[in-house]
């Protein structure tokens, strides 16, 4: 367990690296007729290259605002988000977002949905290479045989796989996931979590994921960032998840540490930072 | 239906006054009777879909029951039938003696998507129900009622808002208030929080729990959230997958009320119950996948079945199975396709073998006997054990806190209990029928501590022992390695006694199969016994132990820290009490000293102890039962064919550390000597009727 404001201390395998994605005293304030509304207040976090970080917190804790600022959809009021040394100012293909509600174009096939992005990001590549990139990524998520199906013919889990493939086909430096599995049934959710871990390991990509699910966060991430409740949400605690990789769910459930961490997170979210919905 | 539940499996297992009280409450008259319900849907193509098959369930007044299962298991159909919105094809629902034939306000439903009327305000939505159902009351009374329920869910400020202006969580609170305002006899909740995010659910669950507690409502809830079910329910009904969904298992939830989330989560049984349910759901998922390719017996090499699924628990004494697999001993005996399944708990092992998912498994010593006798009021299942896989290897570990408080011996523990009679000490074992449980109880009772009345002894799977001990929800446990070594090395526990201090050389793990399986595949069974016997011999050769440690360290087997596996197995044993680590003779014994013989005397001793603690009845025909389970004939044939000694010890007296001597010919006299014991049930077990179910 690690406490607030020591973001530089990370899991051992990354300890030697330079921070990759940096949140530097990040704040977001919305002016309203009745005064300023502070959504996020002083977020400091450094994520290393190849790290898997989950952000967890109650609704309204500004998780999505945080994510929007990494993606470049919104600008921080104070501070900045830096990818390597570059301050993020606009959306770009180096940071791909996967949303909960799939956001696939319904009139395009799975293949075309991915191809669309590949074409615009790699205009200089030959047609054969672009085609190969698309097919490789469809294969990666095990959907090569439904390449020509439209989203309406795919299950929720398959759609989310296409989204992940589409995001990764653009070779982003950071993959941002906004509750990607929230709408899926528990079985499919677990399958996709496992696939995501494999993909993450093979691609060596940095992942920032927002979730509501403690078990999901513990299974996937290297660190779990727990947010306090808004307004003026900040990082309450950062939990190191030390389970060896590659991870296997059943093995993790045997580890006493799992129950310690789970209870710690439950305590944080339901006890110390319990949240009323009105 | 089988009820593999903890409090049922050993009535005295979780002895706290409150839980006993709960049990007596259960015996009260049935409030809702779900009587052998089928639900068949006609398909457009003329066929039929059997959604529910023979659902039989009794719900008591004031009880909170959850229905848990995968989507499509018919749990919502069952709820609709309870409400009267849907009718069963066969069977029926009886509420307080009257059959349910149509929906009515005495069985109010809280739907997943709230079902609030969007054109009415919060208050008007509740008023619609109250005005309709409470017609005979004057308006003033009804208004008070409406106000009271708005207040109950804390929505005074939102009373005049329409559903579209409030959050999902608030909407569901309105739905709950509307349901409770009309004082239903039965509250039915259909995934009430399913549409809310995992964290918003938390507050609502606590509120619902409080309301149900205060109003003594009888509730049936459909959910797929295991944590939610555990927090709220008295019983959790696990449904199998459709078609023909039925009640697979009923789990009793023993947490005392009023409940508080963090207390519930820290209850020593929380994660074992949770894992039990998750395990059930995973089995259902697996069954779904398996349906596509049913497993058939593959005959080869002169054996009836060479594709075997064997179950094991990641413990150091699973070594014979690992060695047989890794050193090719199964193949050498013709068993060319053996898969080792790493199981999460002993219950999973028992369930897996009983349902045929596993062909055979490494079992705790008393499991074949316990299953044959029907432990925990389950249907008896004749089991066979023809091989003892290991002896010794257990220890009793107490928490560092107790040690630091001066508890060094059993006498110290007794004194500590006497000093603080208000404080409940909880100890854990891995299964009711395991030697851990029997030895721990024997050891406690020998020190004048009643394991049911002076302390609480509970069941927790091995892997969760250390975390529960660290969390402080249990004070000690009896378990095999590497879990004692791990607690010692992490500084959270101290070994109080090893089995060498209690009964050196006791049997520990055995090979178990169903009698039906043994009769169906006799040659395969023999080959399996031979392969494992050879593996046991290999394991006891100390020259092989370094290699075995390496095998056990593999993640697919035990996967624990090498240092913890080596403890006692190869390295000196560290008790963690400050004494020098020392080598323990035969810390785990796999072969030497006729270790593998299925010993009838030991079986009888275990039956006395299981009867002593009320886990099983004591069979009047104890010898017949013991000989039916312990198949010395199969062992003998295997040993002879391998050129090994085919005999064990004759019926022999057993000496335990307290000086009492067990004479296998006089088990009842032996039981008489114990001051601390439960009421004995002595029953004739009609062995001929115990045929293949």
């Amino acid at each position: 367990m690690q406490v607030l404001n020591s973001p530089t201390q990370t899991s051992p395998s990354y300890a030697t690296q330079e921070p990759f994605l940096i949140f530097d005293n990040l704040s977001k304030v919305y002016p309203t007729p009745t005064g300023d509304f502070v959504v996020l207040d002083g977020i400091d976090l450094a994520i290393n290259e190849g790290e898997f970080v989950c952000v967890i917190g109650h609704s309204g804790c500004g998780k999505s605002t945080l994510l929007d600022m990494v993606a470049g959809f919104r600008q921080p009021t104070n501070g900045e988000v830096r990818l390597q040394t570059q301050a993020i100012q606009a959306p770009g293909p180096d940071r791909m977002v996967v949303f909960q509600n799939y956001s696939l174009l319904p009139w395009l096939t799975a293949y075309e949905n991915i191809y669309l992005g590949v074409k615009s990001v790699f205009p200089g590549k030959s047609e054969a290479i672009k085609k190969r990139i698309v097919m490789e990524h469809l294969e990666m998520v095990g959907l090569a045989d439904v390449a020509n199906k439209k989203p309406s013919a795919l299950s929720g889990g398959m759609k989310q796989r296409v989204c992940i493939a589409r995001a990764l086909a653009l070779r982003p430096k950071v993959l941002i996931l906004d509750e990607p599995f929230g709408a899926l049934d528990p079985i499919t959710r677990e399958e996709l979590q496992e696939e995501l871990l494999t993909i993450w390991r093979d691609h060596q990509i940095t992942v920032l994921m927002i979730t509501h699910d403690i078990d999901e966060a513990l299974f996937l991430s290297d660190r779990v960032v727990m947010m306090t409740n808004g307004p003026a949400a900040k990082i309450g605690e950062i939990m190191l998840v030390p389970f060896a990789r590659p991870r296997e769910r059943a093995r993790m459930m045997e580890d006493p540490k799992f129950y310690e961490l789970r209870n710690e997170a439950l305590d944080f979210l339901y006890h110390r930072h319990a949240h009323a919905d009105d | 239906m089988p009820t593999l539940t903890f409090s049922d499996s050993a009535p005295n297992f979780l002895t706290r006054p409150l839980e006993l009280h709960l049990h007596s409450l259960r015996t009260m008259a049935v409030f809702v009777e779900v009587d052998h319900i089928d639900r068949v849907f006609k398909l457009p193509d003329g066929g039929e879909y059997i959604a529910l098959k023979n659902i039989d369930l009794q719900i008591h007044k004031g009880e909170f029951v959850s229905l848990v299962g995968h989507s499509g298991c018919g749990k919502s159909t069952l709820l609709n039938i309870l409400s009267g919105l849907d009718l069963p094809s066969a069977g029926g629902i009886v509420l307080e003696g009257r059959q349910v034939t149509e929906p009515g306000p005495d069985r109010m439903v809280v739907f997943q998507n709230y079902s609030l009327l969007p054109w009415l305000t919060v208050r008007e939505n509740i008023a619609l129900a109250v005005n309709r159902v409470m017609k005979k009351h004057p308006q003033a009374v009804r208004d008070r009622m409406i106000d009271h329920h708005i207040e109950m869910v804390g929505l005074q400020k939102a009373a005049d808002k329409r559903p579209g202006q409030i959050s999902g969580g608030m909407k569901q609170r309105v739905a709950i208030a509307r349901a409770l305002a009309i004082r239903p006899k039965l509250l039915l909740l259909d995934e009430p929080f399913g549409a809310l995010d995992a964290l918003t659910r938390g507050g609502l669950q606590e509120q619902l729990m409080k309301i149900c507690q205060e109003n003594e409502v009888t509730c049936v809830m459909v959910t797929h959230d295991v944590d939610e079910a555990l927090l709220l329910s008295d019983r959790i009904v696990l449904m199998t997958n459709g078609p023909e969904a039925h009640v697979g298992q009923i789990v009793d939830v023993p947490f005392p009320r009023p409940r508080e989330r963090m207390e519930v989560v820290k209850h020593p049984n929380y994660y074992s119950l949770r894992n039990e349910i998750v395990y059930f759901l995973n089995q259902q998922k697996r069954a779904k996948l398996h349906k596509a390719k049913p497993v058939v017996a593959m005959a080869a090499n002169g054996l009836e079945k060479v594709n075997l699924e064997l179950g094991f628990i990641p413990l150091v004494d699973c070594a014979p199975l690992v060695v047989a697999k890794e050193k090719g001993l199964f193949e050498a005996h013709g068993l060319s396709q053996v898969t080792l399944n790493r199981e999460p708990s002993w219950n999973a092992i028992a369930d897996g073998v009983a349902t045929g998912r596993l062909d055979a498994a490494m079992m705790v010593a008393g499991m074949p006997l316990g299953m044959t006798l029907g432990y925990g009021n389950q249907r008896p299942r004749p089991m066979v054990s023809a091989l003892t896989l290991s002896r010794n290897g257990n220890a009793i570990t107490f928490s560092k806190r107790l040690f630091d408080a001066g508890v060094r011996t059993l006498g110290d523990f007794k004194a500590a209990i006497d000093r603080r009679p208000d404080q409940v000490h909880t100890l854990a074992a891995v299964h009711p029928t395991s030697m851990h449980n029997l030895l721990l109880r024997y050891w406690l009772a020998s020190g004048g501590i009643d394991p049911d009345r002076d302390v609480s002894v509970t069941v927790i799977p091995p892997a969760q022992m250390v975390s529960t001990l660290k969390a402080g929800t249990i004070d000690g446990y009896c378990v095999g390695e590497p879990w004692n070594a791990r607690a010692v090395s992490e500084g959270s526990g101290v070994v109080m006694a090893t089995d060498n201090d209690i009964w050196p050389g006791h049997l520990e793990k055995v090979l178990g199969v169903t009698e039906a399986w043994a009769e169906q595949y006799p040659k395969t069974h023999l080959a399996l016994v031979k392969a494992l016997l050879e593996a046991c011999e290999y394991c006891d050769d100390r020259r092989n132990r370094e290699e075995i440690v390496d095998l056990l360290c593999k993640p697919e087997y035990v996967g624990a820290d090498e240092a913890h596996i080596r403890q006692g197995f190869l390295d000196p044993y560290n008790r963690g009490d400050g004494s020098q680590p020392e080598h323990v003779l035969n810390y785990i014994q796999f072969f030497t000293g006729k270790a593998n013989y299925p010993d009838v005397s030991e079986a009888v001793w275990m039956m006395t102890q299981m009867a002593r603690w009320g886990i099983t009845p004591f069979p009047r025909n104890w010898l017949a039962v013991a000989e039916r389970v312990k198949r010395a004939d199969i062992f003998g044939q295997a040993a002879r064919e391998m050129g090994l000694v085919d005999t064990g010890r004759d019926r022999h007296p057993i000496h335990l550390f307290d000086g009492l001597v067990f004479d296998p010919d006089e088990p009842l006299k032996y039981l008489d000597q114990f001051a601390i014991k439960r009421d004995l049930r002595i029953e004739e077990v009609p062995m001929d009727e115990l045929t293949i179910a």
Partner: protein
Amino acid sequence: MTAPLDIRPARSRFNLQKFANSSLDALKGLVPPAVAILIFLVIWQVLTMGPDANLPTPVRTVQETWELIINPFFNYGGTDKGLFWQVWTSLQRVALGFTLAAVVGIALGILVGTSSLMYSALDPLFQILRTVPPLAWLPISLAAFQQANPSAIFVIFITAIWPIIINTTEGVRQIPQDYNNVARVLQLSKSEYFFKILFPATVPYIFTGLRIGIGLSWLAIVAAEMLIGGVGIGFFIWDAWNSSRISDIIIAILYVGIVGLLLDRLIVFIGGLVLPEEQKQ
């Protein structure tokens, strides 16, 4: 925005600024349509400036119809009335025909929606009849009523009724099963079910039907009046064409468009009064 030196207390400055901002925003909203109209007028002017243009320029249109524009209320008897009276007569016909259509349509829609027998019997019929163009009904109604005015009203009625019936039916059939379950569990009586659940749940669909219906009515009346003559904006246009008063036609079209828009907005406005926020479409 740079504000001049201000010595008033902060609070009032805040309000002032807010007021300035909001009125500025409102003005900003008017700029794009104003520009679009201006461009349209310029194009029109350019295209019709030539000596042999068939249509008048905007300037000429205004000059020629100035009398009509500044004095919509004149009444010289017969069909020689100001534009207000022309529109007013048409609106009266629409009001009568549309009201009839609404009453009959909603009642029929609910009936058909609640009974699956009626639905299967009548829905195909409705689907066929709704595609019949309004003017196709005119000869039949003239034959039936023998008079111009009732015939026009009947055409309005028959044009507007189909979307009202079909949408109401759809609304009844689309009542979420949950609401019906609530009614069943609470054992609501038939009348309670109708007033507490069925009708409110159907209202948004009814308003969709009414909105489509009013649009069609207005389309139909202009066309019908062209054929049956008498006072009314439709005949005014036809009369202007016969008298080659192109400018009058242009100004009448403008009136027709604005009135049509106002009718549509009126239904939306009433719907807004009746419907709670979350049921608006």
